[in-house]
Every structure is written in C-alpha cells, then in structure tokens.
C-alpha cells in the first residue's frame, strides 16, 4: 500500500499516471502476441513443430495473457465497486419482502464488493437489521456465483452470448434458491445470538468520502492481493491446459464427459464442492477444457460449483446457520447449478 502514498494527489496528474499505466498495459498485451515467437523460434532457434516446445510456448503466452487480463479487469472493477458497499446494499434491501427482495438482493450481490471472509458479519448485519433470511441468502449466493471478474474474463475468452447466459442463469439460481429457502421459515434455523445482536452506533459506509487517489489505492491493492492468491491456480490451470492442448486427443474428454454422459454434470458439481477457488483461478482451466471439446454447460456447472459451494465458506456459515438450513442451502443451490448445466448443454451446440 505504501506505493499508493507516492501517487500524486491532483486529479490532472493522477489521470496522467493512469493514461501511462494503460499505455504500458496495452503495450505488454500487444508485445505478448509475438514476443514468445521471437524468443523461442528466433533467438533460441527451437523447432516450432516439436510438441514440447509448442506446449511451453502455449503456457508462457497464455499465462502472461491471463495475468494481464486479470490485472486490468480487477483494477477497473474494484475501482468502480468502491462506490458501492454492503452497508449501502443493506439500506436498499431494508423493508423488502421476499420475491422483489430476492431479485434485488441477487442483483446487488453481483455489484457489491464482498469477500466471503465477511459472509458471517454481513449475514448478522442483514438479519439483525430485519432483512429476511431468504433475501439475505439470495445476496450471499449471487455474490460469489456471478462474479464481475468472471464476467470480464468470460467476455474476452468466450464472447458475449455465453457471458450473458452465465449472468442470467447465475442470477436465476440466486433468486430462486433464496426464495425457496424463505419458504422453509428459515428463521428457526438461525443461531439465536444473531437476532439478539444489538447494533451499536451508526454504520459507517466505506464507499463514501473517499478520494479518487484512495479508490485507486484500493483497486491496486486488490490487484496485488488477488494475483498473489490466484497465481498458483493459474499455473496449474494453464499448465494442465497446455498439456491438454498438445497431448490429449479430443476424443478422450468427449468420450468421458461428453454430452451423452448424463452423469457428467452432477459429477462435476460434486467434484467442485471440496475444490475452492475464485472464478478468476478456475476460468483458465475451463477455457482449456472447452478447447479440448468438453461441453460448455458441464464446464460452467463445474465453475459455479467451485465458486458458490465451498467447504471453507460452509464451515464459516455454520457459526450462524443450523445444519438443516445449511443442508437446504447446499441442496437448492446444487440443484440449480445442475439444471443450468443441462440447459446449457441442451441449447449450445
């Protein structure tokens, strides 16, 4: 964060630094296209027909590309999101009933900056302020499931149609799951202390009163936090992708988990529960598996399960939710994800 203290405070100079950073980013993205051709085939005189050489080439190119995309997308989105906060979302949700409340909560879940490590304080804050449990769950499901960074990556890697389907179906899952949970009278399965929590003092809204420089600081801090947290996943994901790209025949995956195998979708959803990563970490692997011929519905179901149903988050939520409610949450969300997987497989050739 100390880097941010060195930034100029005047808006004009700050804009200049921003323009410089953008130009550098664009240059790096552009250079990446031919840098590796030049290094590997030009300077090192490696044989481009050799499969090992080609695999390494694919890896370094793709790794740098995804890193640059991630850094750019995370910066822009975190900057924009610094104008939104969980506190503001709670104020907007106050007094909303189930139904309208679920729709609003899911939508706000997408744009509100939120870390799953804050799931418990946010849950208490919502419920203690009178937001219904089902509506709160719509927010908590949508927040990791429909992730803006995933939206940015999907747009650049897969195009707008698949991105749109992802957003709409993710929202639908969050809305319906929260609404269904609300029908079970879930208040009886919430730990008592949540309702007994007295909120002292005015909530301070972290999105207000920040200077542009502070927002830039938050955004660049987030870029370094996520990159540091995600790069091992990227090495594994892109590494597997490079190996699949060069060595595994397409028929292998399509025969194991193609559209004809009806068990593939539920199986990948199950596989996704113990795995935990954010959408940014899992998407490069999804891209390479897609390139290897796996159907998109199965892959999106896998990704949704990895991000929305995770053991660490379930363990956190266990502090405030009784097992019955946790079970309903997992069951309803998993069912939604499986249905979306089948739907995508059916409508996308």
């Amino acid at each position, binding site marked *: *964060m100390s880097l941010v203290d060195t930034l100029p405070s005047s808006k004009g100079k700050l804009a200049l630094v921003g323009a410089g950073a953008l130009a550098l980013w664009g240059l790096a993205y552009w250079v990446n296209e031919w840098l590796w051709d030049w290094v590997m085939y030009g300077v090192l005189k490696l044989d481009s027909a050799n499969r090992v050489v080609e695999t390494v080439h694919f890896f370094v190119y793709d790794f740098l590309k995804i890193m640059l995309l991630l850094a750019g997308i995370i910066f822009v989105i975190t900057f924009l999101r610094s104008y939104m906060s969980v506190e503001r979302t709670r104020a907007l949700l106050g007094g909303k009933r189930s139904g309208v409340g679920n729709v609003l909560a899911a939508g706000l879940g997408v744009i509100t900056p939120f*870390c799953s*490590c804050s799931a418990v*304080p946010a849950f208490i*804050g919502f419920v203690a302020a009178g937001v219904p449990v089902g509506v709160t769950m719509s927010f908590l499901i949508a927040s990791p499931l429909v992730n803006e960074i995933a939206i940015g990556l999907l747009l650049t890697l897969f195009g707008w149609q698949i991105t749109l389907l992802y957003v709409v179906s993710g929202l639908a899952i969050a809305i319906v799951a929260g609404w269904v949970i609300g029908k079970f009278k879930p208040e009886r399965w919430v730990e008592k202390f949540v309702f007994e929590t007295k909120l002292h*003092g005015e*909530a*301070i809204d*972290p999105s207000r009163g920040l200077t542009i420089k502070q927002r830039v600081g938050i955004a660049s801090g987030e870029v370094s936090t996520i990159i540091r947290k995600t790069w091992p996943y990227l090495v594994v994901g892109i590494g597997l992708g490079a190996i699949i790209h060069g060595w595994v025949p397409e028929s292998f995956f399509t025969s194991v988990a193609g559209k004809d195998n009806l068990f593939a979708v539920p199986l990948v959803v199950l596989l996704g529960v113990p795995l935990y990563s954010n959408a940014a970490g899992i998407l490069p692997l999804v891209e390479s598996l897609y390139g290897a011929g796996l159907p998109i519905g199965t892959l999106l179901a896998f990704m949704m399960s990895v991000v929305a149903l995770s053991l660490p988050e379930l363990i956190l939520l266990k502090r405030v939710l009784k097992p019955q409610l946790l079970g309903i949450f997992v069951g309803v969300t998993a069912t939604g994800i499986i249905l979306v997987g089948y739907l995508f497989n059916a409508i996308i050739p």
Partner: protein
Amino acid sequence: MATLDIKVLGPGCRNCVTLDKATRAAVAELGLDASIEKVEDYAQIASYNIMSTPGLVIDGTVVSSGRVPSPSEIKDLLLAAQA
C-alpha cells in the same frame, strides 16, 4: 494523555492481519500510549454495526471498515482521535 483504546475487528482473514500489523506499526511509530486488541468473535464484531471486515475501532468509535487504510491514513486517524 489518556490511553487510546484500539480494537481491530476481524476473524483472521488476510486483510484483518494486515490491518492489525499496520495499526501496531503506526502506534509504535507515533509513540502513542495505546492498548490494541484484536476482536475475532463474530457477535462482537457485528455489534459494532460492521458488515465488512476488517474494522478499526478507536475509543469505541468505528473509524474504518471494509478496507485496509494506508499507513498514513491510519496515522491520521490515530492523531485525530488523540486530539
């Protein structure tokens, strides 16, 4: 000069640890007389009306939540509370 009562609210995520360290560093650098406590209990954290961690509380007032302020900001917050 009264002792500052500082609480860092956070269940132990990365940002909470960062804020705890940064606050201790700022207090040491300014040579303030302060007691620093890390609050990890969810019910207690929520009772400060905080929904995104980490939070920084000085003398019972929440001065920051949902982000890690920069070291110079933390110093400003401490000095403001001291005055």
